[in-house]
Each structure stands twice: as C-alpha cells, then as structure tokens.
C-alpha cells in the first residue's frame, strides 16, 4: 500500500480558519505545476517500487488550476510509478469551481472521487469563515457532480462556529440526509495559530468558538451518524460501510506516502520528510537543485506515539497484538499500565484484544493519547 499526495498551494481567497499552506497570488501557478511535475519525476525511487493505491489532490484549491495540469500529474504517475488499476484518485474541489466542463474533464482524466468543501449550507456561517462560495452553490454542487457520473463523493462540513446553534447544525445534517452521500467529514472549528481567525478572535473582531457548543454539536453529530447508517470511522470522518477514504485511512494505519509540492509531507516507514512551506522558496530550490525540504528519522518512541495518536482516533482502535508486534513488550506494558485511568473515566473500551474510544472518550482523544504516550527519555 502506498499513496501520493499533491499539494496545490493556491486559493482564490483565504478562509479565516485555514492553516494549510497556500497563496492567493496565482502568478506563479504555471511555473509551480512545472516544478511539482519535476519533483514527481525526481522522487520516483522514494516509494521503493510499491504499488500506488491512492492519489490525492489537496491544498489549497486543486479545482482552481487547469485540468490539463491535473492530467499531466495523473499521467506521470501512471507512466513513471506503478499505479494500481483500481486506484482511488481524489480531487478536492470548491463548490464554485464545479462547472460542467471541469467535471467532465476530471472524469475523463481518471479522477474517480471528489471531495467538496461545502462547510455549511448557511450563508451566515460561510461569511464568518470567509468562504468564496454561497450556500446555494453548496447545495447544487453535489447534484452537479452526480450528473457527471461521480459516485464516490464526500463533503466537508464545519461545526462549532459561533454563528451556528444546535438547530442550525441539525438543519445542515438534514440537507446531508437528502444528499445521501457515501462519505462526509465534519470538523470542529479550531482557532489555529497564525491564522486570520486567531488574529480576528484576538482583536475581538470575530467571536471565538466555545467548546461547550462544539461538544454539544459533536454529540448531535455522533447520534445522527449512527441513526443514519454511517460508521464514525475516524474522529472527523464518517462513511457508509466500506466506503472509507482509502487515502486518508492509509495515514492512520502508518502506510507510506509521497507528498509533492510546497509543505507536503512524505513518510517511508521510518523517516518523515517535509517540503518547504513557501512557494517562491520552493521554486527557487527546485531551480537551483537544492533540497526541497528536510526530514527527520522517527525513533521507536516517536513511532509508538504516532501509532497511539492515529490509531486511537479510528473505530478500529489499538489492537494489542499489533502493538506488541510493532514495538515489543516494554511498550505494551507501558500501554496497559497507562490505559487504566482513561478506562476508569469511561473513555476507553477494552474487550481483551482491542482498545477503542467510547463516545465520551472521543471528546478527549488528545488528552487520552498524551497519557498513553511514552515520555522522551524513558517511562
């Protein structure tokens, strides 16, 4: 199993909450696509001959760049890598970019899954988030994609926005019910460091999200998903049985991936590598044949901690036999000892083989993971 991630570092406008890397200046877009294609060719050996099962175009806004560029990436992967016949090829798109021509082009070049950034079906929420589309465009987007034959569709929603109360959140979920999608992601609005939202909250230009509301809406979401046949397979991800995002699931299962483009991360089992988070710098480095980023070799403690962090967030949880196989008895003993506090709180369920979060535990996943972590420099 292996995947390739393309980071398209451009957006039409900056959403207040977003801490991913992007630029709203599209002047270097063509040059950037050239450079990313060059990187894709240069790093052929990184995947060590593994079959590529998933390709993911994220960002930024991949729907913003010409489909010819996407086509070139897909073809290069096809020609230069071992791309599986039934590979999942996902493209993130904004509702306002889903034109008939774009959709038919994407279909033609082999995109078989679309991830649509809807966020909310209410204009007030969208304006708080500083999204570029309207609620109307959001509703139409899914139907439009379906008309072009896209069956594997997912949408992103955001809850916990100060403009949103529990009723409105239920209204959003009701629209989702009508759309009858195989998959959706729902994120709790987070004030990330160095974002416009952080600045606006600090200067009190915008209200801060509060965790009381977010917790309540998360609970509503969990109940709704369960009663509508969705598996809550990761903290923020929901799917009809078997319709998981294969690309993202690979991240949580410690599979290998290659990240192309500014700020993209790669992982080959023991080393994580990250490209520079700056468009002009990325282009300059590419032009001068300098390293595009830097890497770090993960120690066994790092790997264990990442295993705990990511596995715990999934519905499959942590399988003790797998933990022991990967990290040995010492880590297993540590885990067994540290898990009891969260178990007593009713945050963890243990059936003798696997440890999974309860609904209550899902609200404190970070806290629980940190408790289960191995401290640097011993127990």
């Amino acid at each position: 199993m292996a995947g390739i991630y393309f980071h398209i570092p451009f957006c039409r406008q900056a959403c207040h909450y977003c801490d991913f890397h992007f630029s709203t200046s599209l002047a270097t877009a063509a040059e950037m696509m050239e450079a990313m294609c060059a990187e894709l060719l240069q790093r052929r050996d990184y995947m060590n001959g593994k079959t590529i099962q998933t390709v993911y175009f994220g960002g930024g806004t991949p729907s913003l760049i010409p489909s010819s560029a996407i086509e070139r990436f897909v073809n290069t992967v096809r020609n230069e890598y071992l791309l599986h016949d039934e590979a999942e090829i996902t493209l993130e798109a904004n509702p306002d970019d889903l034109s008939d021509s774009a959709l038919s082009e994407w279909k033609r070049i082999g995109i078989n899954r679309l991830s649509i950034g809807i966020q909310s079906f209410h204009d007030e929420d969208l304006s708080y988030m500083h999204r570029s589309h309207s609620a109307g465009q959001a509703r139409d987007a899914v139907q439009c994609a379906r008309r072009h034959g896209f069956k594997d569709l997912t949408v992103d929603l955001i809850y916990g926005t100060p403009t949103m109360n529990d009723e409105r959140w239920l209204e959003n979920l009701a629209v989702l019910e009508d759309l009858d999608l195989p998959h959706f992601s729902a994120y709790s609005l987070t004030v990330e460091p160095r974002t416009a939202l952080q600045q606006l909250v600090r200067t009190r230009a915008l209200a801060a999200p509060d965790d009381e509301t977010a917790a309540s809406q998360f609970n509503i979401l969990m109940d709704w998903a369960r009663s509508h046949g969705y598996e809550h397979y990761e903290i923020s991800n929901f799917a009809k049985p078997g319709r998981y995002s294969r690309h993202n699931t690979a991240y949580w299962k410690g599979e290998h991936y290659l990240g192309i483009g500014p700020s993209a991360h790669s992982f080959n089992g023991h080393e994580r590598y990250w490209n520079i988070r700056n468009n002009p710098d990325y282009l300059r480095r590419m032009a001068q044949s300098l390293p595009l980023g830097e890497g770090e070799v993960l120690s066994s403690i790092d790997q264990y901690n990442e295993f705990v962090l990511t596995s715990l967030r999934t519905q499959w949880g942590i399988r003790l036999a797998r933990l022991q196989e990967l990290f040995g008895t010492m880590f297993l003993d540590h885990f067994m000892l540290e898990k009891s506090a969260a178990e007593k709180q009713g945050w963890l369920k243990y059936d003798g083989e696997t440890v999974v979060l309860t609904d209550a535990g899902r609200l404190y996943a970070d806290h629980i993971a940190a408790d289960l972590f191995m401290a640097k420099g011993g127990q």
Partner: protein
Amino acid sequence: MKNIRNFCIIAHIDHGKSTLADRLLEYTKTISKKDQQAQVLDDMDLERERGITIKSHAIQMEYMYKGEKYILNLIDTPGHVDFSYEVSRAIAACEGALLIVDAAQGIQAQTISNLYLALDNNLTIVPVMNKIDLPSADPEVVKDQITDLVMCERDSIIPASAKTGLGIEEILQAIIERIPAPKGTEDAPLKALIFDSVFNSFRGIIAYFRVMDGEIRKNDKVKFVNTGKEYIADEIGILKLDKQPRAVIKTGDVGYIISGIKQASEVKVGDTITTKDRPCLEAIKGFEDVKPMVFAGIYPVDTDEYEELRNSMEKLQLNDASLVFQPEASAALGFGFRCGFLGMLHMEIIQERLEREFNMTVITTVPNVSYTAYLTNGDIMDIHNPSEMPDPNYLERIEEPYIRAQIITKSEFIGSIMTLCIGKRGIIVNQNYLTTDRVELQFDMPLAEIVFDFYDKLKSISKGYASFDYHPIGYQQSDLVKLDIRLNGDPVDALSALVHRTHSFEFGKKMCEKLKELITRQQFEIIIQASIGAKIIARETVKALRKDVTAKCYGGDISRKRKLLEKQKEGKKRMRQVGNVEIPQQAFLAVLKLD
C-alpha cells in the same frame, strides 16, 4: 608598603566596570590581549550572562611609574544590593576607589550608596567618567553631578573610554599619585581582614584577605577570631590571573590562604585572621553575621528527587555560605526545603545554579520576608513561612522588617514614583535635588513590599530612568493577616501569604484572577477561592474543558500534533496535584506577577 595601592571600583551595572578592569589588567601586562577572555573578573557563566559581578574577586597588578615598581591590588565588588555587606568589607580592605560614572547616564542610586560607604571608610575617590566616546555622552552635566557628590575639582575627573583605551594610563597614574599607600604596623601581631572567599573542589575554601598589621607566613598556626577556629596556613600567596604561592604576605598587601577548610560557613566575610601564638588584641570592626532577608520554599519537580536536591543544596552551600535551608513539608508540594536568601537576585541565582550546575528542576514558592511574632505568653517567634503564623488568639503583635529605599530619578517621574511607593506602604523621609532635573528620594518601606514586583514597576513607570538601592532599618509593628488559597475547597499551603490587612481584599482578588489565568482547564470545573480564616474574600471559576481533540489529523498534521502533545505531557510532569486539580509550576509564583 609604600609602593602598594589597594583600591576597588564603584560603578553602576553597565557603566563599564568589568571592561575597565580588563583594560587595567591589559595595560599593566597582567594579562596579554590575546588570552583575554571578555571580562576576566567575572568567571562564572551566570555572571557573564547577567553582566554583573555576583561574587567579588581580587587581582594583583604591577606598574612601573617614574622608575619605581608599584603593586596595585584591585579588589572587585559585587554590584547588587543583595550583596551590600560584602561590598562594605571589600571597601574596608582598600585605601581608595575608582568611581566610574557613565558619561551618558550619570550617577545612579547604586553608585551613590556605595560611594557613601567608601567615603565613610575614608577612601580616596578617583572619579572617572567612562564612555565619553558615546554620541549620547553629556560630560558637562555628569561632571556637575560628580563634583557635587564627591566635592572634587572638575579637572580631577578623568575622561575615559574603556572600550577604546582612552584615559587608562591616566587612571593608573592617578591610582599611584592620589591614593595613599596602606598604613599598618609591620611588627604588630597579625591582623588580616577576610573580604571574600571562594570554593575550589580540589583545595576547599580559599579565603581572600588584606593584611592590616603584621605579616602572615606559610605554615603559621592561624586563628579566625569570630569563629574561633584554628588552622595551619597550608598555602598562602598572591592573586594574579592564577594563584601564586608565596612564603610571606606583608603588611598592606592582599593575598589568599588555603588551609583545608571544607565548609564555606567556617569562613565568614569580615572575620579577622590572626596567629595563634601571638594574637591581635581586638578583631577588625564591622563584622556581621549575614542574615537571610528573603525566604522561599524550593521543591523538586519530581518528588523522587528530594535526596538529590538535598545533596545539590549542600554542595551549593559549600561555596555560598549565605544560603541557608532546612527541610519543610507541604501538602501541595511534598518534601522540600525552606531556604533563606540575601535577596531576590540571590534567590534567582540559586535557582538557576541548581538547574544549570546540578541539573535539578525545582518549584520555587512565593518568597516572603522574615517576620517576628510576639505571643501573649511572652514567647518570641521568627516566622519564615506563612504556615508558621500563630493562631491570632495567641498573637500579641507581629513585626515586619523595614528598609530605607533610595531612588534617583528624573524630576518628571517624582509624582508617579511617589504614588507607587505610597501604594507600597512607603513613607517619604527625604527629597534632595542632585541637579536641576535629577532628584534623590528616600522612603521607609516594608521589605515585603519591594520583594515582589517593586523594581520592575519602578523601572516601567520611570521609563528606565530610576535607579534604586536600599538598606534594612529594623523591624516595625504591622497589621498582617494570613491569606489562604483554596482549589475546589482544598487549601493549597504553598500559596498562602502574609499580607497587610488593608491590602488583603485586593490581593486576594488579584491572586484568584491570576490563578484563573494560569491554571489550565481540566475536565471538571475548578473553583478558586481566597480566604482569611474561614471567611472567603474572593472567588473565580475555571470552567470545565468539554472537548480536547484535534479536528484534522492527516499527513503533515500527524508529527506536528505528536510533538505538541509530547510537549504538553512534558509540561504536565512539572505540575503538582492538590486534590484532583493540577497546578502548573508558574502558579506557585503567581503572586510575583499580579497586575
């Protein structure tokens, strides 16, 4: 003896004392420029970083002048109020002093109090105006200040720049011409003043002394008059860049003695060295047993490290006799030590040395001064910790230490400084214009009020144009109450404080507000209360954390999030638990950061 000159340097921090000292060493060829480490006299890392000399040292230079060789002993002095007793002993070992004043900044409070000390000891003052090469130098105004203070001629002030080397030869010549040679009786019994000591892990304690009368020889049986202890002078010598052993140190000269002493507490600054066989009739005046002024609890962050902390403190005490400590137990913090310090800087230094030299991470509690409680049954108690405060029913009265504060500032800041000092229970006792726009203010104030954030506040309201010094003036009766802090009903003993009754409500309110800021939200609500006895005077609530989970966790987020959580976990190790509430380390010093 006629060719010996003993002198010290009086200067405010940053006025260039260390750089000037280096220049003197360089011009007398005591060190070559090549092997000159920046600021030779400060040899602890900490000293160099803080740019101040914490412990005094001495060094001997030789200088040829008009065909004669002169011995110049420079006795360095610490530059902070915490160490004012050590300064007074260093001054007592000298006949003269270089007064260094920054040509741009002018005279500061610290300089004045040390200058008065030097004048009281009849030292000859050689005024030097340093940094005259600075564009912001204002030599005429600074000259006015100096002539007013020292009562000297304007042209006796030597313009200098330690940076460029300007004026250094003139300073050396002035030391020889103006400062008198030491006076002493060569054939009298030995009388030598200990003005400093250092700890050497191989040789034990090395004491620095100035011979006032008589002479000291290697292998003499010596006696330290105030401690009454006797030793053999295993090695004596003079201090160049290294120690240079000698057979004899004669009247007027400065040297060191090594006599196998292991404990710093046996060598007291200000003590007199004499010989056992032919003792001097009386000790040198001015000896004092240094008493700690500020007390605080020091606890290991990891409770298992109590024994290690004790070992580290004992080692620290070997070369810093002014540190005192005794075991103490706190319900909130476990086992630790109540420590006495000379002042706040001394406390910070000890804390940093524990971390740097002994790799100990510690929690320091709110510092307090030493109070004296007079009980109804006639008993008198020293109180070093709020928890020792006797029940009010048995308390006749309580006294707290007062200081006289000396503040020099620009006249435009008088109003705000007055407000600050009066708010800190200060009473103005003197106001004196040094020049038309520089004024010296004196206040009598409780020491407890300056222990906290006084100096920081003074600096900020005067935009840095105020300097400050103080000395203790004894104890005065005070209306003090014990203020307790409770978290979810459980009292946190380490957060108790003794405060003046008139300040208690405001203090309690601010403490609760500050703690609300510092205590991180947990999965349950935390109620913070301030109380005097059973009466709650302030209350704040830390809301329960309803959610602690990352929304997005994809490729690049994974290691970023892992590192963040690892850091949080590390921070948690430094927290203490009272009941089920986790208290971060900073909270124990919250009181220092009120406002």
